[in-house]
């Protein structure tokens, strides 16, 4: 593959895919251990009304406004769930189901309203993203990676995701102890005086941040898959949390890069002339990795008890 073609057309989407996958996989480890893995799915539904509202207000596809809207919607949902839980004593799963479905329905209604306006916002884009379109027009080859002028025109999704990932990693390092302790034994953590409710809210907020930033670039299918698959597969490879995290980062990277390449070139190799959706293929690869580890992973027995 020559640089003149690969660097502008394939490198940015692959990097964006990898960053998005890792950003979701990191909090995914804790969500899976807390049996809250579906929260990723839920968040990606919840953000829809936020995105549409931002769009209706600004009347433009402005990324920052949409991120803000999505973040606000996620925060609103999380707080709603907490309030309903405390007031009604209904089981959390049921509350989540109600809140998320309602907000998603609201999003669809708003979307229909917006379709009358001049700029188009479609559901398919929200689901699949459009990884393939995130290209780097100024790049002329590998040398462009060292050219500040060309670098300045990299897709903004790339820098946004890189920033998000750095933030998530820093938070993970700082709060590693309270987070692991309250994930394993919440009652004990609380007896030591740790603010366990704030910790679990913080985790959901970080997951929402990852979901919202990734959602904008790669669509919700990757978000949902990356919250669950790399972490669940990693759990089957090791019995220590630290190495589980590293495995999940590896699996996320592998899914994103292999998935992108397979989507672009796979159909050509088997004689078809169309490529398939990169987002769909990346999610599929992550699922296949999980299936493989479930059959072959060294620690798969431990988790069946």
């Amino acid at each position, binding site marked *: 593959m020559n640089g003149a073609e690969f660097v502008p057309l394939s490198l940015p989407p692959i990097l964006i895919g990898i960053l998005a996958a890792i950003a979701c996989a990191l909090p995914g480890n804790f969500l899976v251990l807390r049996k809250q893995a579906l929260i990723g799915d839920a968040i990606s539904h919840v953000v829809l009304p936020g995105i549409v509202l931002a769009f209706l207000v600004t009347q433009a596809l402005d990324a920052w406004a949409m991120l803000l809207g999505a973040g606000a919607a996620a925060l609103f949902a999380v707080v709603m769930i907490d309030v309903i839980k405390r007031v009604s004593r209904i089981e959390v799963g049921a509350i989540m189901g109600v809140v998320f479905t309602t907000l998603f329905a609201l999003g669809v209604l708003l979307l229909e309203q917006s379709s009358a306006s001049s700029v188009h916002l479609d559901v398919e884009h929200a689901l699949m993203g459009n990884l393939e379109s995130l290209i780097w027009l100024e790049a002329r080859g590998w040398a462009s990676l060292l050219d500040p002028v060309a670098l300045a025109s990299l897709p903004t999704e790339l820098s946004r995701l890189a920033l998000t990932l750095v933030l998530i990693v820093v938070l993970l390092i700082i709060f590693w102890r309270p987070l692991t302790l309250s994930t394993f034994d919440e009652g004990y953590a609380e007896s030591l*005086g740790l603010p366990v409710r704030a910790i679990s809210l913080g985790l959901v907020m970080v997951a929402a941040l990852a979901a919202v930033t990734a959602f904008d670039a790669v669509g919700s299918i990757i978000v949902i898959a990356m919250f669950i698959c790399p972490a669940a597969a990693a759990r089957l490879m090791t*019995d220590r949390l630290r190495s589980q995290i590293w495995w999940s980062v590896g699996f996320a990277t592998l899914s994103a890069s292999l998935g992108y390449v397979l989507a672009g070139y796979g159909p050509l190799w088997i004689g078809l002339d169309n490529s398939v959706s990169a987002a769909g293929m990346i999610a599929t690869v992550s699922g296949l990795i999980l299936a493989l580890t479930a059959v072959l992973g060294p620690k798969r027995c431990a*988790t069946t008890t």
Partner: protein
Amino acid sequence: MLRLHQNDQTLDPQSPLAIRGLSVSYGEKPALFSVDLTVAPYSMTAIVGPNGAGKSTLLKAALGVVPRLSGQVSIFGRALASERHRIAYVPQRASVDWDFPANVRDVVLMGLYGKMGLLRRISRDDLAIAEDALAQVGMQDFAHRQIGQLSGGQQQRIFLARALAQNADLYLLDEPFAGVDAATEAAIITLLKKLKDAGKTVVAVHHDLSTVTAYFDHVAMINTRLIAQGPVAQVFTTAHLQEAYGGRLATAQIDRLREAGHY
């Protein structure tokens, strides 16, 4: 969340754990109603009562793990917030998922997190404390074993080791003998008695009435309300057991329990 603790400090300054008028509710029905409890210093106190009596809730409310509806708690005569570091809590073993990716040493080291803070690296001293705690419960050879591969008794031992690593003055244990083998039960009670001899105070929720007299010197009987508390010889009586357990224990059974304590 409304909590009343403005007068917490004024309760019995001698007692490691003093509770006044504690009420807790999860729904409409109270789990605890107006409970007063004063744990004697250097005692081994059993908390007994039927299932659902609020025993676990009592420990959790004392630790601030569940919110109080009303009531005051004082720890060594002071507010909980300032004395937390003197308490080690051993939750019910079944309250956690033992498939968690951690080994035995990881879990024992959690007992030191309060001391280590967020970012300080684990030191040689920390490791030595963890090793010593494991040795005290006879689990020194299991430090690198995945916790999901332990038996119930072994899991209980490492929960206890985690509490020992805290080097607390007051130990609050929730059913430490539930589902453990006889050898573990003997090892745990020996250890708890050693703690008491070293000037610590031990409070344990206990479900086996036949061993109350042999294991503990004080007992508190509860069934949503406090039924009785004090030295075992005075409080562990047929009348109180009848009151706490209602019709659930036959008189003949209770007589046998009392005799069991007097071998």
